[in-house]
């Protein structure tokens, strides 16, 4: 069971990494294109909106990677103290608590953002390239959902020897 969850987690990591590289290059190409086109007095209005949504996507996918690496920004006073005092067992339990709290909170926010997406799908409009604003809003629950899954996996994995050692 844990192996299957690990496989999914690795799939999320890999998929997010590929999309992230693509997003950054698209961001770069379209941003430079806007400048070049402006020199010849051409303006394509949807380019800017497209780039901003790529930034939104990169934010959540970057968050997915940060979750896997455990590099989210936190206050971390207790954890560092326990590490300094070599109280590893307590640190493992503190980590489990943070993973579980993060998972629970993110499920709640994901649900809230999903509800917003449903409303947007009903009342929103087509933004660019035939993409509806509801679909673009979907980046938020999609990204948060992936992060939530990774926290859940970290919690479960922390009960395995390999996960607890991290």
């Amino acid at each position, binding site marked *: 069971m844990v192996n299957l969850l690990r496989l999914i987690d690795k799939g999320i990591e890999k998929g997010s990494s590929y999309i992230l590289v693509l997003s950054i290059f698209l961001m770069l190409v379209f941003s430079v294109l806007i400048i070049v086109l402006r020199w010849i007095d051409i303006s394509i209005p949807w380019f800017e909106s497209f780039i901003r949504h790529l930034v939104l996507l990169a934010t959540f996918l970057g968050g997915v990677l940060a979750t896997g690496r455990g590099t989210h920004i936190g206050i971390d006073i207790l954890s560092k103290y326990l590490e300094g005092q070599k109280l590893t067992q307590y640190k493992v339990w503190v980590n489990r608590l943070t993973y579980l709290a993060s998972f629970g909170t993110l499920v*709640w926010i994901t649900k809230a953002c999903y509800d917003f997406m449903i409303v947007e799908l009903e009342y929103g409009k087509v933004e660019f390239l035939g993409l509806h604003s509801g679909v673009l809003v979907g980046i938020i629950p999609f990204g948060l959902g992936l992060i939530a899954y990774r926290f859940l996996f970290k919690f479960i994995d922390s009960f395995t020897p390999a996960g607890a050692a991290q």
Partner: protein
Amino acid sequence: MIFIALGIIALALIGTPIFVIMGLVSLVAFSNAGIEVSAIGIEIYKIAAAPTLLTIPLFTFAGYLMAESGTPKRLFRLADSALGWMPGGVAIVSLVVCAFFTAFTGASGVTIVALGGLLYPILIEEKYSSKFSLGLITTSGSLGLLFPPSLPIILYGLVAKVDIDTLFKAGIVPGILLIVILSAWSIRNGAKKEKNEKKVFSRTELLAALKGAIWEILLPIGVLVGIYGGYTTVSEAAALTALYVLIIECFIYKDLNFFKDVPKVIYDSMALVGAILLILCCAMGVTNFLVDEEIPMQILDWMRTFLTNKYSFLLFLNIFLLIVGTMMDIFSAIIVVVPLITPIAAEFGVHPVHLAIIFLTNLEIGYITPPVGLNLFISSFRFKKPITELYRASFPFLLLLVFALILITYIPEISLIWIK
């Protein structure tokens, strides 16, 4: 309600990511006020409407590309050939190179990781004490965050709705002031430790080093001319910077392999960007809720009972921000604290740009303030030294930065010299 608040504080203190805490506070606050929690989605989606948001991933990407390449070595050679002959020269060189680097990498700890291994042995070889060298590198890790195009300045502008171009300009003189004060300390220390042969200035070496780093030297000049010459917006400057750095590092210097190294740089830089922008996303709900509930004005009314003028407010602000800086990283602090203090500061007659510089200087000091200053931990990890040794090593530098902060706070002209 009090138990929920205490529970959330406890979760924050045990290391739950700040963006989760912000999200949880939003959910609880919205539920408690009878507001539909899906409004949090609306607040998060507002991020996609911020035109300058693009600058954050692109400048960070460019900074990380330089950190992974041979840029630190080339810049060090150049600065060493130009300033290394002075008393305290190597230390000053370290300060200048770190400041340059931090401006592009956003004081994210990358400076210490990328430059620490290069600078520390050089400082030791030049007979600086281990304590001085550690203190210098630890402090330099956040030096330069007042210079354009630093990530904290951009984030501050976004959150406080202050013009980012203006903030870039305002940070230059205070940033130079910090370097000058630390350089003076380094000269004093350098002269004392000068037991080896004096380094001689060589024009040939300077020209060779200049030729070697010419592409990197053109970068900050290009960014400033582009923005202030009216040729590009900040976002466009970020795009051109990222493209320029990508081309020079992969195809001119050939330090990085386009297919092997660049994806890794993207993962590293975007993990940081994701961590920062997620806090921004999740905090939008909280901050707007607090502003709607007029919490800043209630704090202002309470403050007016013991703060009577602008100067007492500034003193209070500095103490408050130094405490915040010891507990929170600069990005979380900007997102959480700025919306609360800006209306209060405006009531006390503090110029918004001056406030920004005071705020950022305080948080810069927070990086080396015990017990949880981020640079202290990064240096401890990088140099494999106990954290308490880093506390002692950084303390003189901390005092010098506090002195600079006092000047910046009480002489607004330092920040506003170029602001109309």
